[in-house]
């Protein structure tokens, strides 16, 4: 009985959240009026598992709530009830509420009981037959809050073989004693004479009086494991003081609601902390098997090499080289398979969009089809989590600013229903996500005027359409004529671009006025490994991420210009580019190249601004594994992390945008 159920909570929550996702997806796909019973069954099963799980783990509120949903789904499944839009909407809302309740349980905070009650009432109203639904609701409230102020009379008669299943009545009674003061009366009548006594049987039964204000469900929990192996009768003790106690209970019941309202904000923070603390990943068994195979081969190679090393002669040199080659291959393959474990299909991120588009388009009175492709493209788990918000922003943007109202669309000679395409695919070492809409596109004149008005562009500037489109990524830019709930709060595309850049990616826009826009997001496949260029300054080795490098050049003195006698710039194809000396930003004293002609300039780009980073020499390109400096030390300006080179020494990875910011300070 004293099994610590808490250790399974995390698994339960994860499974339940998955179940909720299944329910949500299932509900979205239901054909109104002519729903396939198998589809409903899938939703029903998900709900049923959640109900079962939450009951087992003592989340009574969730179990009761799901029960009502289940009743509704059951009737739909059996064809006793039509699948109406109203019902589906309400079920979707219930899924949201369940998710909220589950989050609250996870953070151990109080759920918003008002919303839950309102939703329960709504569900019951749909159930209509308030005999069915109402009863459940009554049960719900009664079972979770029934408590008798004075206590309980418990008659506990274990079956003779209860102890054979490992349940000890004494422990159960002890647990009851922890709930409140108890009086135990043991019945020994069934005890046989000693010669007939089977030591493994239980002959005793108990009358237990438990004092205190204890909910029935709490007591039932104690007997959870032995329910089927005993006779159990619970009767509340009624005494004269029951009336005031009940009232007291009522006032207590209202208080937590208020508390819940005030603690709502911190609860959100808790959630973040909890999620950051422990998250797990589901990996397909194939990937694990691959990995185990690889480890097996690695072990074989290792034993071969150590055998070879025991008495090594030069004749075996070739064998040794072979072995080392094998080792290298296995190591690389293993690295790849380990990385694969972190890869998840991007559908984890895409799956929320059908719901979002459905809800928002209804709210705005637009007709929109969402078409998704490439959902199985795999991407690092960390990236999936981090790309979610920028993606939502872009999709909302397309919904709000892109797609026109149905009437406008017809007037423009387009199909009444707009289309938003979400597409993901691999290209080179990157993953590309495209968000395309066939809406009104970007009006270059409106954008330019707005930019001039906001002082982002000098009046009379002559910009190409592409340059104008880029303007929407500027901070403080929003062309929405009126601020809507959906987008247009002025914090927008610049934040999106910044977030994506912080993941090592880039976002671009293509738009044709009147025809639609495409946003293209390019992201590295993983955050754990990057392609780097090793460079040397003095005797220190640094890594520059390849994505930031435009080119590397050697310059002669006639390309160099000084601004105000100090700031060095050089002219590259009609563009003046500032020069940053890594040695001076990082205070490296023994740099070999003192004059700009002696070293190399690596032209890097950060926030679309080029800059020449002056170093001694380039060494080579290699993939590096990113290690955190913060784990044992703290963040260092201009450095995004560290890596370990082939000789075991540590090299720092440069954070190009940070470095350029630092150079401005210097």
């Amino acid at each position: 009985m004293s099994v610590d159920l808490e250790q399974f909570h995390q698994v339960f929550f994860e499974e339940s959240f998955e179940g909720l996702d299944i329910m949500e997806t299932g509900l979205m796909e239901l054909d109104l009026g002519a729903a396939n019973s198998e589809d409903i069954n899938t939703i029903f099963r998900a709900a049923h598992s959640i109900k079962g799980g939450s009951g087992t783990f003592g989340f009574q509120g969730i179990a009761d709530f799901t029960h009502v949903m289940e009743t509704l789904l059951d009737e739909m499944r059996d064809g006793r009830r039509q699948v109406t839009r109203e019902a589906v909407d309400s079920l979707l809302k219930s899924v949201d509420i369940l998710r909220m309740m589950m989050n609250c349980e996870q953070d151990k905070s109080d759920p918003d009981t008002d919303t839950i009650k309102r939703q329960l009432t709504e569900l019951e109203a749909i159930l209509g037959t308030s005999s069915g639904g109402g009863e459940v609701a009554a049960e719900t409230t009664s079972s979770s809050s029934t408590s008798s102020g004075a206590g309980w009379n418990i008659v506990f008669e274990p079956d003779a073989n209860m102890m054979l299943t490992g349940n000890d009545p004494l422990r159960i009674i002890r647990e009851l004693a922890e709930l409140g003061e108890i009086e135990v009366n043991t019945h020994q009548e069934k005890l046989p004479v000693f010669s007939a006594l089977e030591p493994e049987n239980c002959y005793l039964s108990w009358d237990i009086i438990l004092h205190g204000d204890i909910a029935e469900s709490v007591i039932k929990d104690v007997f959870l494991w032995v329910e089927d192996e005993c006779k159990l009768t619970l009767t509340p003790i009624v005494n004269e003081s029951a009336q005031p106690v009940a009232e007291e209970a009522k006032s207590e019941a209202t208080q937590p609601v208020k508390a819940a309202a005030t603690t709502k904000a911190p609860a959100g923070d808790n959630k973040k902390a909890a999620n950051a603390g422990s998250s797990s990943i589901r990996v397909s068994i194939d990937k694990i098997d691959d990995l185990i195979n690889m480890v097996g081969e690695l072990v074989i190679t290792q034993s071969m090499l150590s055998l070879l090393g025991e008495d090594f002669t030069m004749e075996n040199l070739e064998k040794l080289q072979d072995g080392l080659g094998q080792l290298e291959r296995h190591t690389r393959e293993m690295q790849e398979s380990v990385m694969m474990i972190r890869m998840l299909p991007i559908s984890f991120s895409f799956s929320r969009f059908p719901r979002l588009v459905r809800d928002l388009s209804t709210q705005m009175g637009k007709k929109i089809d969402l078409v998704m492709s490439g959902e199985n493209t795999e991407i690092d788990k960390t990236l999936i989590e981090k790309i979610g918000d920028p993606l939502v922003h872009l999709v909302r943007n397309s919904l709000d600013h892109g797609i026109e109202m149905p009437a406008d669309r017809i007037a423009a000679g387009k199909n009444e229903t707009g289309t938003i395409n979400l597409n993901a695919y691999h290209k080179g070492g990157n993953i590309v996500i495209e968000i395309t809409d066939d809406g009104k596109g970007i009006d270059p004149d409106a954008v330019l005027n707005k930019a001039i008005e906001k002082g982002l562009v000098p009046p009379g500037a002559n910009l190409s359409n592409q340059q104008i489109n880029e303007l929407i990524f500027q901070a403080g830019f929003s062309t929405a004529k009126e601020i809507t709930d959906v987008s247009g709060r002025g914090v927008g595309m610049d934040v999106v671009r910044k977030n994506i850049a912080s993941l090592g990616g880039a976002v671009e826009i293509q738009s044709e006025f009147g025809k639609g826009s495409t946003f293209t997001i390019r992201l590295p496949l993983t955050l754990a490994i990057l392609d780097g260029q090793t460079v040397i300054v003095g005797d220190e080795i640094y890594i520059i991420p390849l994505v930031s490098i435009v080119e590397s050049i050697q310059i002669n003195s006639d390309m160099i210009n000084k601004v105000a006698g100090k700031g060095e710039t050089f002219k590259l194809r009609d563009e003046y580019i500032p020069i940053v000396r890594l040695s001076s930003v990082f205070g490296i004293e023994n740099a070999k190249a003192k004059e700009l002609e002696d070293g190399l300039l690596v032209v890097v780009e950060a926030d679309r601004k080029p800059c020449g980073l002056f170093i001694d020499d380039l060494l080579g390109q290699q993939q590096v594994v990113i290690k955190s400096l913060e784990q044992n030390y703290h963040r260092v300006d201009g450095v995004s992390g560290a890596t370990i080179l082939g000789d075991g020494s540590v090299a720092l990875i440069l954070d190009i945008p940070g470095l350029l910011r630092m150079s401005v300070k210097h």
Partner: protein
Amino acid sequence: MKNAEAVVEEINERIDNAQQQDGDEYLTFRLANEEYGFDILRVQEIRGWEKVTRIPNSLNYVKGVLNLRGAIVPIMDLRIRFDLPQAEYTPTTVVVVLSVMSVNGTKERIVGVVVDAISDVVNAKTSDIQSTPNFDASIEIEYIQGLATAGDKMLMLVDVDKLLNIEEDVSLLDSEDHEDDD
């Protein structure tokens, strides 16, 4: 050199033994002819000095970072930390790798410190440890948790968490930076 390695090995062994028994054992080390002691339970290992990767614009006593079996570990010079005259790194110069708890006790970090040489492992009963007297104000006594006697020498017992709590110094560094900006 051979000798130094043997000493390191022997002491590493004694650390392992000490970690199995309970008691107040301290790893003692020398720094500018003074004897100091670390709580031995905080000591992870002792390594010879090897070249580290410098960290740009860091605190002066942070020598750099080292690869310790895949983890990036900062290495600090205790002489600079204690404002003692700097010494050449010799073959007996060692790095003591310590585990440091953050102020609120939630995060454990691994930090290496450079000391002149390690001496011994001594047993000091709690009753033998004297609280730190008030020195001249120029000596930062907050890092010393107490005094003990080893043989005929005085031993200063270092409070590892206070000494190596770099967060405070880092924030100091940041504020200096801002002053520069102004």
